[in-house]
Structures are given as structure tokens and as C-alpha cells.
């Protein structure tokens, strides 16, 4: 017979399903909620419910949003002739933080990983091609991650995007700011050398 009350073990079980949360952390969080004021738990429960009820995918760029088309896609001041293709919604957040990019986005929701059974059909690639076919796009910026899966996705997209008048570019790659040259791998160093610029 379990000595833990049923409502407690239920919350522990549910919390331990979350990524990065083990049984001990789940227990700590549950007892924290138990001791905190009821309003706090209610606010959390309401926020989670709202998350599932009101969040949708933008029908244009497939970013996660609370209204479709999303804020970026419905902003007339953004440059609709450029689409930056990213793997995940959080990549859009990272790029927006730079304040340097004023074009549109397209979220693939993953990268091609044949060994995991993730092929082009599982990603929002057909939808990207549809956007390109509308004729307004002049540049596609491939901003997939600089690893083997991201590169394979970029290579695959480059093949598909051989359209007259369309420029396909890839984000520059090389050494990170604050990095240490001696720890860089050969591929990164070779790319940094190849992409060196005059100062």
C-alpha cells in the first residue's frame, strides 16, 4: 500500500513525464505547489490549459502563435521577398533577438534524420515549396542547424529550390564569439577560413 496520497502521486507522475524532470524533481515541485497558495496552483493550471486551447500553428510560416497569420506574417513592414527557413520555433525567437532580420520565416518542425525515420514528408517542406511557387519570394535563407542533419536538410532543400530568379543562401558558419580557437574542430576552422572577410 502506498503511503503517498493519491492526488500527490498523480501530480508527481504527470510532472515526471516532462523532459528533464526526474521523479525526485517531480516530488519537490509537487510539494512546493502543495505548500504554496491555492491561487498560484490555479494560475499554473489555467496557463497550461490556455496553452493547449489557444495556441495554433500559423498557416503561413508554421510558427507557434496565438493567432493565424502570426504577428510576423501579418506585419506589412516585413520584407515578404525573403524567407528564413529554420528547424524549430525557438530558432525564430533566437533570430528575432538579433533585431537584424526583417524578412519572413518558415518553420520546418525538425530536420531530416533518416536514421530516426524523419524524412521530408514529416517536415513542412511541401508548404515551403507552395509559398515559393506564389512568386513573391526572391531569397530563401537556409538557417538549419550547423550539424549533419541540418546540413542534409539544407542540401535537400537546395535541390528542390532550383527556381529561376530565386536565390538560396545558407547562414555563414565559423567560430563563435567568445570561443577558443584551440578547441575548434577541423570542419568549423575550415569553414571559418573559407568564409574569412577583409577588415
Amino acid at each position, binding site marked *: 500500500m502506498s503511503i503517498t496520497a493519491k492526488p500527490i502521486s498523480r501530480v508527481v507522475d504527470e510532472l515526471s513525464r516532462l523532459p528533464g524532470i526526474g521523479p525526485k524533481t517531480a516530488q519537490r515541485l509537487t510539494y512546493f505547489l502543495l505548500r504554496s497558495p491555492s491561487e498560484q496552483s490555479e494560475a499554473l493550471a489555467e496557463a497550461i490549459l490556455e496553452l493547449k486551447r489557444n495556441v495554433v500553428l500559423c498557416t503561413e510560416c508554421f510558427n507557434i502563435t496565438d493567432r493565424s497569420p502570426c504577428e510576423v506574417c501579418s506585419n506589412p513592414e516585413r520584407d515578404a521577398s525573403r524567407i528564413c527557413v529554420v528547424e524549430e520555433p525557438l530558432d525564430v525567437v533566437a533570430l528575432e533577438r538579433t533585431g537584424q532580420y526583417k524578412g519572413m520565416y518558415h518553420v520546418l518542425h525538425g530536420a531530416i534524420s*533518416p*536514421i530516426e525515420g524523419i524524412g*521530408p514528408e514529416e517536415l513542412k517542406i511541401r508548404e515551403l515549396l507552395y509559398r515559393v511557387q506564389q512568386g513573391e519570394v526572391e531569397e530563401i535563407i537556409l538557417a538549419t542547424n550547423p550539424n*549533419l542533419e541540418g*546540413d*542534409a536538410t539544407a542540401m535537400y532543400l537546395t535541390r528542390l529550390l532550383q527556381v529561376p530568379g530565386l536565390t538560396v543562401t545558407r547562414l555563414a558558419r565559423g567560430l*563563435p564569439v*567568445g570561443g577558443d580557437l584551440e578547441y575548434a*574542430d*577541423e570542419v568549423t576552422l575550415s569553414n571559418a577560413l573559407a568564409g574569412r572577410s577583409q577588415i
Partner: protein
Amino acid sequence: MTNQAAPRVYRTEALVLKGYDYGEADRILTLLTPHSGKMRAIAKGVRRTKSRMSGHLDLFTRSTLLIARGRQLDIVTQAETVENFRPMRGDLVRVSSAHYVAEILDEFSAENLPNYPLYALAIATLRQLGGDGDLDLTLRSFEMQSLAHTGYRPQLHRCLQCGTEIVPGQNRFSPKLGGILCPDCGMADSAAPPISVPALKLLRHLQTNPDGLRSLTSIPVVAKQEVEQRLQEYVTHRMEGRLRSVRFLEQVRADQS
């Protein structure tokens, strides 16, 4: 009696077969090592751009690793590239082929069971995938050698049922039984497809003389296709399921041709 505890930190060479994101910036890697077989380890913070290890732990990179023993998973604490198979990385068909190779290695190798010949085969195959040799033959040779190194070497010279020497004729290749059935014993596996003489010759060549593939100047395309089909059926049967990476490999090859 001496009671020697295992060292808390150890060094090994490893090939990164696959990995998946874990937590905020970590990755759990499946590694193939020369002396400990397949193993899993966690690389902490490796998804951050400033990580000192990320470039050394990308897929299909051969690296020297310093690993600390963990309670559930060992932790990669240092990594340095030995070989990154760069010529293979710039081409989609070659990269897809490498995924196919990695999937077979992952399925065919057991955790903590040393298999040095399989490791050496993996390294040699990834090198060949970046070379100018016939890509299809490289993959067929890999399939045949990996089967041999994991105890599934198909019998190609004697009938599996009656043991008589196989001569040119209406022979069959049985993935279920693991080799050739002579015309008299074909009914032992009624689902076994017939195998042509050129295809059987190529299979034997792949099994006995993989290094001599370059000397084969003209192999009929039909025989190559037949061998590909038979070997994939055999591998699939041994794995009890279709390889996930085949679909994408077939797709990019079709797009290319």
C-alpha cells in the same frame, strides 16, 4: 584478494552513430567503440554554440573521448576529432548512405560487446563513401561484411538443405534460412526468390574478396539491382524490420538519376 574498482574516467576512441537532444542543451549519443562495442553516453551542453565539444561529436565523427562514469549514463568530458570523413559530408546521397550504414551498425551491434572488425569496417566504409568508388558496391560490400562480422554470414557455396555444392542453375536465395538453396531443395523455403548466376557470382565476390571490387570493371546493372534486393531482404529479415533510412536513400538516389 584484490578488489580493483573500475577507473572513474576512461579514454576511448568512438564513432558517433546517432544522438538525440536531451534537456536544455545536452545530447545523448550512441557510440560505436573499437574495444567496448556499442555504448551510450551523455554530452552535456553540446548544443550550445560555444561548446568546445560540439564539432567533435557531430554524427559520423570519429573522435577520441574522455568519459566519466555516471550513475545511469557515462558523461563525455572531452572530445577531439580523429577523422570527420569530410568528403562524404558534402553530398546528399553520400550522407544518406552514411545514415544507412549507421543504422545497420546500430542494429547489428550489441552494447558493451566488443567487435573490433565491425568498428574497422565502419571506419573503412565511411572513408569509401567519400571516395570515387562505386557507391552501390561500397554499400553491398558493407552489408555483406557486417553480416559476416555479426555471425550472419550467408552460405553461398553449398545448399543450406542438402549440403551439395551449388552449381549454375535454378538456385534460390533464402533470407529466412540465410543462403542458397539448390534447385532440388527450393521448396524448403517456397518464398525464397530465384537468384541469377551473375548475381550469385557478385554475392560471392563481395563475401570473399571485398577489397578486389575495383577490379570488377563491368557488372551488369540488373545483377547489381538483384544483389541489392537480396541483401536488403536478408538484412531486413535479420533485423526483424525494415530499415528506416532506406526510404530516404532511395528517394534521393531517384531524384539524382
